[in-house]
């Protein structure tokens, strides 16, 4: 049961009651991701996400964390291609406190020079931890887009370059907040042990007097698909084995959801489980790769607007030429394009997706974030609940067509090459 409304200031509200759980979740999805950050300020959307935890008119620095956790709750935020989310899950007793905390920083966050400098340091540590100091850091989500895409929004590094992060100013932060964090550009999702009417009144009480501001016109990030293969190699000082990623363009989920779903199932038929096509062929039969996987969506399925990326990634021994890996993948795609998967093969992958959907529904946090993201991106949270049925209706011919599309279009191929560093 989904209940939705829009406040007078433009804030969208989605309520998802679940009487069986003793917890509540509150999420704010803001319609800006790293694709919207300006040139010269790579990583700014994510840096700004950090700043939103640094206090507000009513709460000093550190108070947000302390109040959420001191109420027995957990919290986080994350920056994606097209949105930034902020969320907390707490015992149901803390519902109003959670709404207050989210409203207060959406209304009047504290943006200070000291906090900006501190969080630039923290973000640089996050990048060192997740990218610079580890093998395969940023593979493929940072490294593949610049091979497949041409325009700045789609191709740049969403974590950001250190030099650009360091140049970020307080005025940049103020402009970003005023432009993108208008109530009309955001959505609140409340899920868990809630009464709908009471919760709606509390949402109105805490968010309702945030003044409306103009909302930004969302640009199109469309760009032509590459007509041919593009290839790029990057060295990795920490990687012990080579790796490769193949990136293809996905159908627009807003305009062609069924085409997109066919690609989701194609990814499963290729890569999910020991019986999947690429596992059987490349891992076990030919022994070409150590591990291989396929996915629809750079940061998850149905997690971005158009354009988004279908990926196939593999780690392989140095003795195996990457073209042998790519050639074998192409042969498997051609087989699927020519003959499609069997009805049973497809039904098994649909059953796994359905089970996965149940598991997502079983946790307030995942259910809330999934519904909230799809509501924001596509205006239809219902897609989440309809997914098992719609996937079950995808035909082998549609998966076959998806495979043919991948074979027929251009693509980006990224090769990660172990650099012979002093620690090799």
């Amino acid at each position, binding site marked *: 049961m989904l209940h939705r409304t829009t406040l007078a200031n433009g804030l969208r509200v989605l309520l998802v009651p679940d009487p*069986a*759980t003793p917890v509540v979740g509150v999420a704010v999805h803001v319609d800006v991701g790293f694709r919207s950050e*300006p040139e010269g300020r790579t990583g700014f959307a994510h840096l700004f996400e950090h700043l939103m935890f640094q206090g507000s*008119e*009513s709460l000093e620095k550190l108070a947000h964390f302390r109040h959420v*956790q*001191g109420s*027995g*709750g957990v*919290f986080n935020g994350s920056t994606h291609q097209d949105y930034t989310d902020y969320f907390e899950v707490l*015992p*149901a*007793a*803390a519902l*109003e*406190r959670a709404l*207050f905390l989210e409203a207060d920083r959406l209304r009047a*966050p504290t*943006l*200070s020079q000291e906090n900006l400098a*501190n*969080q*630039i*340091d*923290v973000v640089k*540590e*996050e990048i*060192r*931890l997740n990218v*610079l*100091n*580890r093998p395969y850091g940023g593979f493929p989500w940072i490294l593949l887009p610049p091979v497949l895409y041409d325009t700045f929004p789609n191709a740049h590094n969403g974590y950001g370059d250190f030099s650009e992060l360091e140049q970020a100013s307080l*005025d940049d932060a*103020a*402009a970003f*907040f*005023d*432009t993108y964090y208008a109530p009309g550009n955001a959505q609140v999702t409340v899920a868990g*042990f809630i009464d709908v009417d009471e919760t709606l009144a509390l949402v109105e009480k805490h968010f309702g007097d945030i003044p409306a501001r103009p909302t930004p016109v969302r640009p199109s990030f469309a760009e032509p698909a590459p007509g041919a293969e593009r290839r790029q190699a990057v060295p990795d000082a920490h990687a*012990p*084995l080579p790796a490769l990623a193949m990136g293809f363009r996905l159908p627009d989920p807003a305009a062609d959801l069924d085409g997109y779903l066919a690609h989701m199932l194609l990814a499963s038929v290729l890569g999910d*489980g*020991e*019986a999947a096509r690429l596992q059987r062929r490349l*891992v076990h039969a030919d022994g070409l790769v*150590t591990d291989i996987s396929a996915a629809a969506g750079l940061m998850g399925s149905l997690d971005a607007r158009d354009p988004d990326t279908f990926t196939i990634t593999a780690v392989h021994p140095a003795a195996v030429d990457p073209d042998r890996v790519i050639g074998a993948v192409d042969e498997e795609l051609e087989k699927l394009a020519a003959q499609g998967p069997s009805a049973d093969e497809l*039904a*098994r*992958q649909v*059953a*796994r997706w*359905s089970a996965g959907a*149940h*598991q997502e*529904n*079983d*946790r307030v946090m995942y259910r809330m974030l999934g519904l909230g993201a799809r509501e924001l991106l596509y205006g239809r949270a219902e897609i989440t609940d309809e997914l098992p049925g719609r996937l079950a209706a995808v035909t082998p011919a549609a998966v076959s067509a998806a495979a043919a599309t991948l074979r027929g279009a251009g693509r980006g191929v990224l090769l990660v090459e172990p650099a012979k*560093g*002093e*620690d090799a």
Partner: protein
Amino acid sequence: MTTATHRSAEQIGRTPTGPRPLPDLGVTREVPLPDVTDTTLSTGLRVLVARRASVPMVELRLRVPFADPDPGHGHPAIAELLSETLLTGTATRDRVAVDDDLAAVGAELGASVDPERLLVHGSGLADGLPVVLDVLADLLTGATHPDHEVARERERLVERIAVARAQPRTIAREALQRVRFGDHPITAEMPTAEAVTAVTAAQVRATHAASLVPRGSTLTLVGDVDPAAATAAVERALGSWTSERTALELAAPPYPTAGDLVLVHRPGSVQSQLRLSGPAVPREDPAYAALQLANLVFGGYFSSRWMENIREDKGYTYGAHSGAEFIPGGAVLGVDTDVASDVTAAALLETRYELGRLSAVPPTAAEIDAARSYAVGSLLISLDNQGGLASTIAGLAAVGLDLDWLRAHPARLHAVTPDEVAEAALRFFAPSGFSGVVVGDADVIGRGVRALGGIA
């Protein structure tokens, strides 16, 4: 960045009506924990089942104690290959058939092994439970660990070990285990490539027959199932999984002793891993609840002294975490963070400062209350799904505890006094009690950290 007019940062942070008060909390609901049926089959297998019908799924955890029966003869490598090939073939199913049969009921099974136990974990649609149990029984009683699969998985395992050992966290973990536990088998978390290369399929099959046994093992099921019917289904499916032997528990390792930190050189590192460790106490110890609260105040959650200092004040790290890790016979405390090379000495200094401060300046009532609320609330949240509940029941059972312990735990946390927290802080967090490792580029960080002293 934009030419549009916008408010200044200062204007954004103020409203005409000014700051607002924080709303009070409402009434906290109880942790809704189901009853668990607890049955030991004639084969010796213990079966725990709980009904949680939130979604039409069932979660499965099979824990088999899997200690090395004969140290020095390759058990860790054999066990690793055994778990990698457990799902690759039986008399009636090959690798693909195992996966196909599971997928047909939305199920997945996986196996993993460590020095303490082999774990088969998975989930599936609840009405597919008979299929999942049939496949599981086939694997336990009929896995053939085919020669060609062992050969292929041996190659892959060597490659995966190379990838894992390139991870700074793996390097730090291995170094820490050696510092804490010397050459006790608990340190053998990842075999060497050489040991894996030497393993034969015959050894894998022999170890399966000898060590992967029901007596001493526990199967936990949580989901949209009837406990009595599910237990009966387990008995039917797994009744033929028998052995005269009892699964082997890992012997308790020696407790870590305090000592200098060991500096481990990783050339080219742009970050350093700080891993400090000292003794702790397990869940059933009377001091555990006080330890839990003292730990939260130190570094066990985001709103901790250590995190607020080295991340939110100084920007040295993205994350810092401390917590108890349970080992056979007890528990140890871990204090972990990754920091940039150029602030490694400064971060180590602040870490020792916060350890000293916790033992010398005990947590305040406000700090303890926040930690207590978090401990109770996060427990509630962690149990709000079938998988979390299944893992918790299985983890408690492994140390002889059950959900009654968990039901009573909020009251136990509420009963802890400030004096008890102060005592736990002094007992477990005094900097003089720690040993550990610092992993990083010694050419960059060595001089600075050595200047602080206490570095071997």
